[in-house]
C-alpha cells in the first residue's frame, strides 16, 4: 500500500512538521491512503517510464490536463510517490487557495499557488514540480477536442531554463473520458465569476463520481532545455519541444490501449 512508501519521502521541514507552503507528510499519508482504492481499483493506474522521473533534485513534470476534476493530478502524484518515493508539488491556479477547506487541503498535500516566486523557491529547495501548461482550459475542454492539447503556456519552459531543471514530459491517457463534457457555458461562468462552466454529459447531481476509466500514465525521457531564460525564442522552443513530447506520449497511449475502460 502506498502509505508504506511515504515515510521515506523527503520534505523541507520548516520546524513543526510542515514545509513553508503548508505541506504535511502526515496529511499526505492520510490523503494517499484514502485515495488508494481510486488509484489501485477504480482507475487501475498503469504507468510506463517512471524511471525517467529523477529520485532526487529539482525537476518539472509537465503533463496534459483533462477530465473536469483534477483526478489526473492526484493520480500522477500518487504514481510518482509510489514509483519514485517523491512528493510532486502541483502548481495550482491561485483561485484554489482562496477556496475554504479545499485550499487548505491542497496545501497540506503539497499543492502550491502557481506563481514564479513559489516555483523558484521550490526548485531551489530541490523539489519536483507538476505543471499542467493547459491550465483550467485543459480540464474543461469539450469531449470533441479530447486528447488534443489546448493553448500550451510556456511558463514551465522558462522555469526549467532559469533553474537548469530537467523537464519530464508525461501523458495521462484515460482521464479525458472520466467526465465527458458536452459544452462550456459562458453564461453560467459569468454568474459564478469564472470564464466558463463545463457541463458534463449528465447533470452534476447524477455524476457524483467519474466514470471508471482506466488510467495510463506515460513518462518520457527528460528534456534538458538549452538557452537563455530571458530569450523568448529559447523559451518558446523548449515549450514546443515539451508539447511535442507530451503529444507523442498521448498518441502512444491511445495506440496501446484497447478502450477507455480497460
Amino acid at each position: 500500500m502506498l502509505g508504506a512508501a511515504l515515510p521515506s519521502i523527503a520534505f523541507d521541514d520548516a520546524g513543526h512538521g510542515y514545509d513553508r507552503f503548508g505541506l504535511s507528510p502526515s496529511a499526505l499519508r492520510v490523503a494517499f491512503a484514502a485515495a488508494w482504492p481510486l488509484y489501485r481499483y477504480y482507475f487501475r493506474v498503469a504507468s510506463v517510464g517512471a524511471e525517467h522521473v529523477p529520485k532526487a533534485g529539482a525537476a518539472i513534470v509537465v503533463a496534459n490536463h483533462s477530465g473536469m476534476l483534477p483526478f489526473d493530478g492526484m493520480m500522477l502524484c500518487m504514481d510518482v510517490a509510489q514509483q519514485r518515493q517523491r512528493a510532486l508539488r502541483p502548481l495550482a491556479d491561485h483561485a484554489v487557495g482562496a477556496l475554504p477547506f479545499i485550499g487548505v487541503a491542497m496545501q497540506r498535500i503539497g499543492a502550491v499557488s502557481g506563481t514564479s516566486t513559489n516555483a523558484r523557491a521550490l526548485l531551489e529547495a530541490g523539489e519536483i514540480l507538476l505543471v499542467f501548461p493547459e491550465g483550467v482550459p485543459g480540464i474543461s475542454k469539450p469531449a470533441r477536442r479530447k486528447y488534443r492539447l489546448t493553448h500550451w503556456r510556456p511558463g514551465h519552459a522558462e522555469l526549467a531554463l532559469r533553474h537548469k531543471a530537467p523537464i519530464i514530459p508525461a501523458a495521462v491517457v484515460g482521464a479525458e473520458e472520466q467526465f465527458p463534457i458536452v459544452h462550456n457555458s459562458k453564461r453560467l461562468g459569468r454568474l459564478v465569476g469564472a470564464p466558463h462552466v463545463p457541463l458534463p454529459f449528465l447533470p452534476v447531481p447524477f455524476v457524483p463520481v467519474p466514470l471508471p476509466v482506466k488510467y495510463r500514465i506515460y513518462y518520457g525521457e527528460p528534456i534538458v532545455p538549452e538557452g537563455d531564460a530571458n530569450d523568448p525564442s529559447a523559451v518558446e522552443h523548449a515549450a514546443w519541444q515539451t508539447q511535442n513530447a507530451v503529444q507523442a506520449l498521448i498518441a502512444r497511449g491511445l495506440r496501446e490501449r484497447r478502450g477507455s475502460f480497460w
Partner: protein
Amino acid sequence: MSRLKSALVTGATTPLGRSLCARLLASGCEVLAVGLEAESAARFLIPEAAAYAAADLAKPRELHDLVFGPAKARSIDTVFHLATHRSLGVEGERVHALNVEALRQLIAHCEAHPTIARLVYRSYAEVYRVDQRLPNVIDEEHPLDHGAGRPQWLRDRVEADGVACARMGMTKLEIAVLRCADVFASGTGSQIYDYVRSRVCFKPLGFDPMINLLSLEDAAEALFLAGAAERGQGVFNVPGADTMPLGLCIRSAKRIAVPLPGPLLLPLYALRRRIIRTEFSYGLYKGRMHFPGILDGRRAREVLGFQPAGVS
C-alpha cells in the same frame, strides 16, 4: 565583522532595543542607547554598560542635537533605528513625525555626519501585501501594501520603508532595511502575539494559513549582522525559525481556536479592540489570516549570514 565599533540604537528601551544593545555589547561594541524616557527610568531598562541619551525623535531639534552632539562625541559608526510607534490605536501627526519624518531627518543627518557610515532600519513584514494572487513565499521584490483605507500604523511603515530605500546608494551612507517577521514577544507591537493573548482565538472558517514567527534574539542577531557585515546595503527579509499553520500556533499557545465565517471576524475583533484595548486588528491582518505569506530569507542568509535559531 570588525567594522562595528560604536553604535547608536534608537528605541533602545523597547524589548528589541534591549536585546540589540545586549548583543552589541557582547560583541565588544560601544553603545549609545537612545530612548524617550528620562535616564533614571531608562537605567532599569537598558544594559548597564550602555551609555544613554534621552531624546524625543519626533522633535527635529532634539534629533539633530543627538546626532551632532553625543553621537559625534562618541564617533558613532553605525545607527540602528528601531524607534516607531507600536500602538495601532494611536494616530496623528506626532505619530507620523516619529514613524516617518524622524527617519527622513536621521538619514539626512547621518549623510552629513563625519563618522556614521551605516544606518540599519528595522522595517516590518506587514509592509508586504498578502492576497491570493501573490506568491506565498515573499521575497524582497514582493509588492508592498499601498491599499486604500489601511491604518496609519501600516501606511507609516510602508512610507518609512520607502524613504530608507529611496536614499540607498545616493551617498556614502550605507542603508540596510530589515523587513522582520512578526517578533513573537510582548511589547514589540506584534499582531500575532496580541492575537493569541485571548483565551479564545477566532479564525476564519476553512482557512489555516502558514505563519512565520521571529524571536527577539533572532531579530537582534539579524540587526547586529546587518550592522557588522562588510557589505550591508540593501533590503533584507528576516524570517524566523518557526513556520507553522495558524491553528497550530493557537494550540501551541494553549488557546482555543474557534473557526467563524470571515465576515463575522471584522466586527468581532473591532469590538474586542474597543472593549479591552488590544492591538490586534483583523482588518490589518486579514490577508495573513487567509493566505500564507512567508518571508524568504535567502538574501539575508547569503549576504549577512543570518540563520534564525528559533524561539527561546
